[in-house]
């Protein structure tokens, strides 16, 4: 699959997961992975797969086509954006599969998926990471 940045994701036995890091000393998580720990200021981070399911912590809908560096398709459709709480790890920001404010609610259980956001030079879709409600997955 044509992903916007291959370093964002890891393959796991359960399927693709976000590639994060965890501090060996204090347990803090980050996304994407980084070498310095933002919590204890140490540098003992190791790579981990982040949880594939979580709950919607907050959300909005992007109502206008952003300026560059946004590279989304020219035919603009509003898209959902949210922060998703991954239990015991962190709260991660990602695109949402849903863009209807009436259908978005804090606390909804959501699952990792890939969402297309533009086409590449050959006309194939380029994907990024996103989340979708579990009962719609």
């Amino acid at each position, binding site marked *: 699959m044509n992903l*916007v940045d291959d370093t964002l994701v890891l393959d796991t036995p359960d399927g693709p997961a976000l590639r994060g890091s965890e501090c060996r000393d204090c347990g803090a998580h980050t996304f994407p992975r980084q070498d310095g720990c933002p*919590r204890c200021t140490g540098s003992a981070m190791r790579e981990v797969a982040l949880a594939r399911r979580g709950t919607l912590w907050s959300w909005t*809908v992007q109502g206008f086509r952003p300026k560059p560096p946004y590279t*989304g398709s020219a035919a603009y459709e509003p898209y959902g954006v949210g922060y998703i709480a991954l239990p015991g790890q962190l709260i991660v*920001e990602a695109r949402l599969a849903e863009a209807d404010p009436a259908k978005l609610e804090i606390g909804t259980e959501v699952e990792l998926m890939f969402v297309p956001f533009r086409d590449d030079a050959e006309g194939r879709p380029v994907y990024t990471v996103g989340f979708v409600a579990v009962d719609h997955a």
Partner: protein
Amino acid sequence: MPEVAIVGIGMHRFGRTDGVSGRAQAVHAAREALRDAGLKFSDMQFGFGGSHSAGGADTLVSELGLTGLPFINVANGCATGGSALIAADAAIRSGQHDVGIVIGFDKHPRGAFATDPAEHGIGSWYGETGLMVTTQFFGMKIQRYLHDHAIDPAVLALVAEKSFRNGARNPMAWRRKEMSAGEIAAAPMISHPLTQYMYCSPGEGAVALVLCRADRARSHTGRPVFLAAAEFRSRRYGSFEVFAPWIASERAPSPTVEASAAAFESAGIAPSEVDIAQIQDTEAGAELMHLAETGLCADGEQEALIKAGATEIGGRLPVNTDGGCIANGEPIGASGLRQVYENVLQLRGDAGEHQVPGRPRAGFTHVYGAPGISACTVLTR
């Protein structure tokens, strides 16, 4: 340790001034501030200043005067003005200098700011996929806040309505036309739950302040305003800030909570003693949240305060009396200094149609910038 006073204020009207560069607006503001203080640029012992998009503040000396003074550029996003002021405060309080100038100015193109993820240490995917957008963050922060504190989203339109009402009374403001809460609520949605007129816009303008040792203030002005405190903080692990691909599960207060608490403590003034407050209102939700983050009210109390008119010019706690960012726009470098300019006008009793009644004694300012910095001041007369 010397105390610090503001003895001169100058401003170039905010808004859009076609054909006048940001630098020219800054020079205008500087000359106004010097004239107000009865001083010349050659009297200045230091300068601090900045702009985001209109050039290096230090280069203004080619127009103001080549006197050899140390002039340092400051860049801290929307908190640039607040940061310049803190640097000036320290320069005087430390005894290094007796008198100097701070200058903030900017001139931005129309539309939302475009920001490069690399400048924030974030991968390019973040911008490419449409997450590097400040308006989204504001939508998500207020969405969560309204949920956590069971606040009626309808107050957001009331906040913006007040901003336009105050701006209409302020000759230096950009937006000088009143707008009803109904019109504001019905405007196009930018990032749910915030509509077009709940957001401020990037704009143009300049502000300059002349500061000196407080014990010499009365030789420059009959009405000095004292900088009782100026404090600055950046974000801690667990605070929820703009341009963050992730945040920690454990919540920490925003930098505003710490910066404002430090400012009140250092000034020896309680939030309940504040007579006027200028607080960062990049959008209506920011004013709502910052009211509590600064300690001016409790979380969840805002809905009742706003609906009762407490934050109006005639209310118990007038907020953003010049129309705030919503009516003035946000020239990044000048924004924090505009708040101080407004409080000085108010404490002098010179605010004209937007003057707060009852001779205010204590003013508070709060400027917030990406990616999680906050600068607060307490001013007294």
